[in-house]
């Protein structure tokens, strides 16, 4: 912004928003061209959706096909988050980018947040793919009961999963083999958050775990919006979870940054 030759710095929130949007867009472009991410966000959810829908058709209990299509879609978003965000700091370090990013005159957490939100957004591929698959291959009647609420629920779910990715990325950095934690975390979260299996079938002790994980509320909101129900309370819980993840993520990233500066390990693998 300039007036009469004098450069007026943009207000801080706008600068932060710009950093976030640019980081998000850059990450989205980069991940959308990664073969591994396409496999994780497209092929894998389609395989799981097919398994669940085929079992549903062969089985004796029947839930709507859309129940499984939406669950498999969020499974894909979770996978992209687990693999794309779990090693976010380690990856920047590996590429020699951690020092410049920490030195940049914007909060480091905003840079990371752009990356994790961009990665979670790539997961939306899986939602579209599983819905299309359900309609074309399994002849499901895909008509959303409340398209507006569905869109809102999808956006809130992606944001909350991206922020959960921020928490994971900043905590996994303390563990050298973060990739193996990512390998381990796919199935348990798919299971306890009720993405393909109703929560009522799981042991009671798993329910508190489900309540603190955003995919639980995200899938409930999406199902309510798609199949008919009250999506707003679940969207609200998803937003609340997002705020908690944001607070935790900001705190964790700050701790990691200070610790790495103090011990001069920003560039160490």
């Amino acid at each position, binding site marked *: 912004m300039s007036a009469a030759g004098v450069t007026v710095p943009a207000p801080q929130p706008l600068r932060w928003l710009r950093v976030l949007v640019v980081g998000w867009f850059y990450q989205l472009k980069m991940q959308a061209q990664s*073969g*591994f991410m396409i*496999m994780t966000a497209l*092929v*894998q959810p389609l*395989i*799981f959706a*097919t*398994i*669940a829908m*085929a*079992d*549903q*058709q*062969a*089985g*004796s*209990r029947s*839930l709507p096909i859309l129940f499984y299509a939406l669950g498999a879609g969020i499974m894909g978003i979770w996978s992209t988050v687990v693999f794309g965000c779990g090693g976010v700091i380690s990856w920047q370090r590996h590429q020699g980018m951690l020092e410049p990013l920490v030195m940049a005159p914007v909060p480091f957490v905003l840079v990371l947040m752009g990356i994790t939100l961009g990665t979670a957004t790539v997961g939306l591929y899986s939602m579209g793919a599983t819905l299309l698959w359900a309609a074309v291959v399994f002849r499901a009647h895909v008509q959303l009961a409340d398209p507006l609420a569905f869109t809102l629920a999808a956006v809130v779910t992606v944001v909350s999963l991206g922020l959960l990715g921020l928490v994971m990325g900043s905590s996994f950095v303390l563990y*050298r*083999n973060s*990739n*193996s*934690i990512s*390998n*381990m975390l*796919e*199935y*348990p979260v*798919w*299971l306890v958050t009720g993405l*393909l*299996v*109703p929560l009522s*079938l*799981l042991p009671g002790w798993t329910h508190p775990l489900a309540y603190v994980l955003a995919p639980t509320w995200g899938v409930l909101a999406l199902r309510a919006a798609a199949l008919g129900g009250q999506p707003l309370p679940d969207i609200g819980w998803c937003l609340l979870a997002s705020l908690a993840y944001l607070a935790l993520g900001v705190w964790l990233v700050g701790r990691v940054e200070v610790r790495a500066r103090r011990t001069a390990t920003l560039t160490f693998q």
Partner: protein
Amino acid sequence: MIGGLISYRALFYWISPWQYVPTMLAAPLFQILFFVYLGRSTGVGSTSFFVVGNSIQICSMAGIYGMTMAISNERQFQTLSPILATPSNRLAIFLGRGLPVLITGFQTTCFGFLVSALILGFRPAPASLPLLLVAVVVTAASCTGFGMALGSVGLRVRDVFLISNIAYFAVLLVCGVEVPLSQLPGSVRVLAQFLPLTHGIAAGRLLAAGRGGATAIADILWELAVGVAWAAFAYLLFRYFERSGRRTGAFDRL
């Protein structure tokens, strides 16, 4: 065998306990639990159907990924050219790498059965146990043969792990691991006959239910034939890519 063991120590990513436990034990265990509960939710099969299917299928994690690492990582780490410059017998190099992977796959499946017995109440028929173990060894060997073929493709293709990932998840659907074969389209059922796991799992389910006999033995032999065919195909592929790689200098292009 010594070469295979050394290559396993050097090239198998998940060999350290910090990697092995989460990737080769915890993740497969959660896979079993996930599909057992999915099966209960849809009412498509018994707990035993999913325990046997998934416990045997998880041996393919070592077979598919392990063999891909054992062959194509030589190219990634730029050690392939020196190995191929040696006069060593190619078949010995090739098969030596399969043995540690086969043992790892066998261990993973045994772990799956053991934990399923402890937490899911899985009880295979005691009289069938020896033959069930034979079925597991044969299936692990056949997955290793399949993995050899994928690893050989890595001598030519740059991102072979993408193919390995797709293969690992595709067998869940195609080989009757999670969906009864009778529910799949005819063309998929035909394809499944020529993939590892299909017959090993069918034999495992019969044996676990105490209905072994000639059908289970025939399935084990069929699984063995599939594994041998994949290993032979993999060896031919390896030699072909070796020759063409020498000609084009592809080994040093990453």
